[in-house]
């Protein structure tokens, strides 16, 4: 049975933060969502100390084999989340990981303490990399900053701390090493790549925010390379993500050293992508176990 920082998982596929609203999906799809929940653990959308409305539209833009988003972390804020959302997320049949982001170590610490205090929460993901909120960038670009943040947070909880790295750096491995030194339990990568597009109808940037984050199959090669380089630099478990759309894609991440994978954008195309990827992965791996090298010399 796969596990992540001691959390047992039915299979190695979880969701990428911000790409699945289990509460909304429950309302749309009903109990079937719970009976056949697509992910082995649920990661919440990133929450911030205060409520946020998110960015002005337009927020999404399709690109070749991918998409840009500038959602801007709309959320109810720490207290709203704890009061309204957490109890409903606790009803999901899988462990809950809460993603948080803040613009100061103190705020981060407060969020970690308040969230970790809740029994329903299995682990915390620290979003130090969201490309849509300027202040979020700084920590994740710098190994020392990241280490210092972890040193602040580590004493506040015994629950696993997963650091979500930003891919928009020259060396993600150095930042991962900083996270490890600071006491992180795992890293997750990649967040979205900074990107933009021009609306041909206006000649101006297509997104309301001017730029956004790129996700989907287009970024998979970049994600795989970052996983490979982070694997070489740390012993931490890796949650690998970025463009996973099939079991074969997931297998690439596992081959390069990820312990668990996350599905993001593909869920938009297929609300049960998580289960599908897990099933495809299972049969890929089973196939590998039984297959003999095929001789093709005729």
């Amino acid at each position: 049975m796969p596990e992540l920082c001691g959390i047992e998982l039915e299979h190695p596929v979880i969701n990428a933060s911000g790409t699945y609203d289990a509460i909304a999906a429950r309302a749309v799809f009903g109990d079937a969502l719970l009976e056949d929940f697509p992910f082995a653990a649920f990661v919440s959308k990133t929450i911030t100390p205060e409520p946020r409305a998110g960015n002005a539209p337009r927020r999404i833009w399709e690109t070749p084999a991918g998409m840009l988003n500038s959602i801007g972390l709309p959320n109810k804020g720490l207290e709203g989340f704890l009061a309204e959302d957490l109890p409903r997320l606790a009803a999901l049949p899988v462990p809950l990981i809460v993603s948080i982001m803040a613009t100061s170590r103190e705020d981060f610490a407060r969020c970690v303490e308040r969230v970790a205090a809740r029994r329903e929460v299995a682990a915390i993901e620290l979003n130090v990399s969201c490309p849509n909120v300027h202040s979020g960038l700084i920590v994740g670009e710098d190994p020392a900053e990241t280490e210092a943040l972890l040193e602040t947070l580590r004493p506040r909880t015994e629950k696993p701390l997963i650091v979500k790295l930003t891919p928009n750096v020259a060396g993600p491995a150095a930042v991962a090493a900083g996270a490890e030194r600071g006491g992180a339990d795992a890293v997750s990568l990649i967040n979205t790549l900074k990107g933009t597009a021009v609306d041909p109808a206006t000649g101006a940037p297509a997104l309301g925010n001017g730029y956004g984050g790129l996700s989907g199959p287009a970024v998979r090669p970049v994600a795989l390379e970052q996983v490979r380089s982070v694997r070489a630099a740390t012993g931490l478990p890796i949650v690998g993500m970025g463009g996973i759309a099939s079991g074969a894609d997931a297998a690439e991440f596992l081959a390069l050293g990820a312990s668990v994978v996350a599905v993001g954008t593909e869920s938009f195309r297929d609300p049960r992508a998580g289960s599908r990827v897990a099933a495809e992965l299972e049969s890929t791996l089973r196939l590998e176990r039984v297959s003999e090298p095929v001789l093709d010399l005729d």
Partner: protein
Amino acid sequence: MNAPFGRRLCEVAANRDSGGYRVVSLLDHEGPEPEPGQFYMLAAEAGWGADGGRAFLPRAISVAATAPGARGGVRLDFLLDAVGPGTERLCGLGAGEGVWITGPLGNSFAAPAEVSPGAAGAVLVGGGVGVAPLALLRRRFGERGVPHRVLLGFRDRRHTGGLDLFCGSSGALCPEVRLATEDGHTGLQGRVTDLLLPILAGDDARSGVVYACGPPAMLEAVRALCAEHGVACELALESPMACGFGACFGCAVPKPGGGFLRLCVDGPVLRGDQVEEVSHAYA
């Protein structure tokens, strides 16, 4: 009624022309009957994403008509305007091809009395491909005996897509339907709001509710006119949707008091007073 969980593969039963648009019919063996205003996320099984990597995401399309499927299930008719790679691919589908669908999604139009206490009748106002959800709404109003009038706007003779969805089985336009065309080749020469204005100015306007779907500028005109005349309205909006089920937060529409609605789960049908101004930015 919930949508079945996940996407499912449906077969194209037919694909016919409708005044420049296409009506693509799918056979759905799993889903419930959709309500007027609801939509589906559609993606062709084959060839999606070809040549340049788009369409990559599924496309939100309103259901325009339903019927019992020939071999069980329900036939879903979609009215499609080929404006880009996704709709082009969908418009080019042949009978027997596969389409991934998720839905029915979103809310639906409410009965006049639910929108405005005491309102008994309805005025349906549609333009362009936005006539699609109104076709289904009119059918339901007809079945339920809700008095209604239909006002449709078209650019010119070559752009009358979807008009046949408002025809009876005889093929003739139903009597409660009135047209405005910009070139005046049929109906009133002008815009559909020119047909709406006298109705809103009429004595009995407040006993009715306006239901509108169409291009943003038309919706904004309808919204503003209704607000001015104190007549309740429901607008079926569009916004860019990646998922259709509340997952991506991409479909944000500004709320009058600040903040945003997610059009896919809070809409696509919004009351006039839930919208500040219908803008191209999110439509």
